[in-house]
């Protein structure tokens, strides 16, 4: 099992798809902060606050992690990697767990690079934080890491369940997009722009539960629940993904 994880990690770190996603991640941060800096300083003649640019990663990360896991995991199927693991005597549960671990690792690495880039850019190009302190910023990145780990595992599980078919690209991105819409809908109901929240009863409980425990919704809000909730939500999604992937991939006919 350990050697399978080591093998998958080594393959991930040499994958050009993964490297490309890391570059896109860093490039996106630079492009956004530098772009805003130009607009704010040159055209509005104001100083750029770190509060405006430090949290860009949240919504972008859903698609980044999904795309990154889709590209690397599907290529493991198409390049014959999964087939090779089976031939070398690895069991299906071992293959699933190792792949899901790699998905989780992608969430961690992408968040790490986003965090480092964001911190450097905010230090160099902005006037600092107006409303957030260091602890809140650290909390934000910790919650982001947890949520991205869960999304990485979930997205990889979808591919494993679909047996690495090309349709996984469509399904994976469609699920990410649908969850993004769902997130926007839930948050607009919980925190309407005008007036107060009008939800009540079971609906309010369900929406609150989603906001508190579904990692996709963590991305759109500054952390305001206790840390245990975020850990429970992320671990919960990871466990569900692992169980589903194990159950379905074990019976999957591969080509």
């Amino acid at each position, binding site marked *: 099992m350990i050697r399978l994880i080591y093998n998958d990690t*080594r393959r991930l770190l*040499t994958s050009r798809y993964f490297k490309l996603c890391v570059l896109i991640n860093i490039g996106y941060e630079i492009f956004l902060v530098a772009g805003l800096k130009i607009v704010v300083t040159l055209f509005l003649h104001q100083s750029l606050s770190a509060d405006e640019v430090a949290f860009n990663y949240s919504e972008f990360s859903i698609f980044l992690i999904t795309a990154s896991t889709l590209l690397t995991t599907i290529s493991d199927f198409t390049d014959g990697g999964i*087939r*090779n693991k089976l031939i070398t005597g690895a069991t299906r549960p071992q293959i699933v767990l190792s792949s899901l671990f790699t998905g989780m690792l992608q969430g961690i690495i992408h968040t790490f690079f986003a965090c480092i880039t964001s911190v450097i850019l905010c230090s160099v190009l902005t006037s600092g934080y107006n409303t957030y302190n260091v602890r809140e910023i650290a909390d934000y990145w910790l919650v982001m890491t947890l949520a991205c780990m869960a999304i990485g595992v979930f997205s990889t599980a979808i591919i494993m369940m679909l047996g690495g078919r090309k349709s996984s690209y469509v399904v994976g991105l469609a699920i990410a997009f649908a969850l993004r819409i769902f997130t926007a809908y839930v948050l607009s109901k919980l925190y309407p722009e005008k007036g107060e929240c009008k939800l009540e009863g079971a609906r309010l409980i369900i929406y609150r539960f989603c906001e508190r425990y579904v990692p996709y919704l963590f991305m759109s809000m500054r952390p305001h629940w206790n840390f245990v909730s975020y850990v429970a939500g992320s671990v919960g999604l990871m466990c569900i993904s692992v169980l589903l992937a194990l159950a379905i991939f074990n019976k999957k006919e591969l080509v």
Partner: protein
Amino acid sequence: MDYVFKSYDLCKQYGSFSALNNLNMEIPKGSIYGFVGKNGAGKTTLIRQICGLQSPTSGSFELMEYKNDSKDIVRARRRMGAVVETPAIFKDLSARSNLIQQCLLLGLPDYSKVDGLLELVGLADTGKKKARNFSLGMRQRLGIAIALCGDPDFIILDEPTNGLDPQGIIEIRELIIKLNKERGITFLISSHILDELSRMATHYGFIDQGSIVRQMSSEELQRECCKSVRMRVNDTKLLSKVLDEKRYDYKILGPDTADVYEELVFSDMVKRCEKVGCSIISMEEHDESLEAFYLSLLGGSGND
């Protein structure tokens, strides 16, 4: 005889389509087993089952004495290598890194064999060139090198010469023969290019519509295919006396028919047969090429 693989009434159903239909097959240890059949006959389906990618709908098989439903079958799989359809290579890595990766996957602590394997398959001078930029033949050879990493006893090659140029085909063939002779590795090679298979296979299995139509050794196939004189006589027992006397190579096909694998002088044969009381009804040259044999066995239509 020892077998590395044996199947018992193996079936695979995809909805209403039977990909494997009560398939019974044996691969002798140390052989190069040519697995011949049209496209869609069930070759790749069987290979996928051996590799553990798919499971049988019914029936069973034994791989190096481990039953397919046994948990220990993974032990048998550790002793085999396979190149199924496309070689399992990491395109972002060099040939050497690919082999190291395979050693890691197999839990082999020593990478010293990697250079030897690269030398063996003729990829020693590829340096840092990534597998993405390899030609089809180079990828195929790298696939075989990867399959060889764990010192396997059994290697499965699915259409190994597909898309290769003549030089590549010769190289792969020579490599297979060398590995079989020097290391005693058993090969299962699926192909429908009979001519190519006939240059290396020691045993054959002909598959059609998911069932083995016939299994034979290369000697048997050669005998079936080589030039012969087909004789029809009143009694083949009497004919065999004459042929034994002359030490001719022959095969009795029935009570009145025999194939003689020699150049016969008609008048001489008539005289000798008359002596033992054997009447010759007809004698005609019989020449069956490998392709003709294949077509007579599997039928000529629908090879798509």
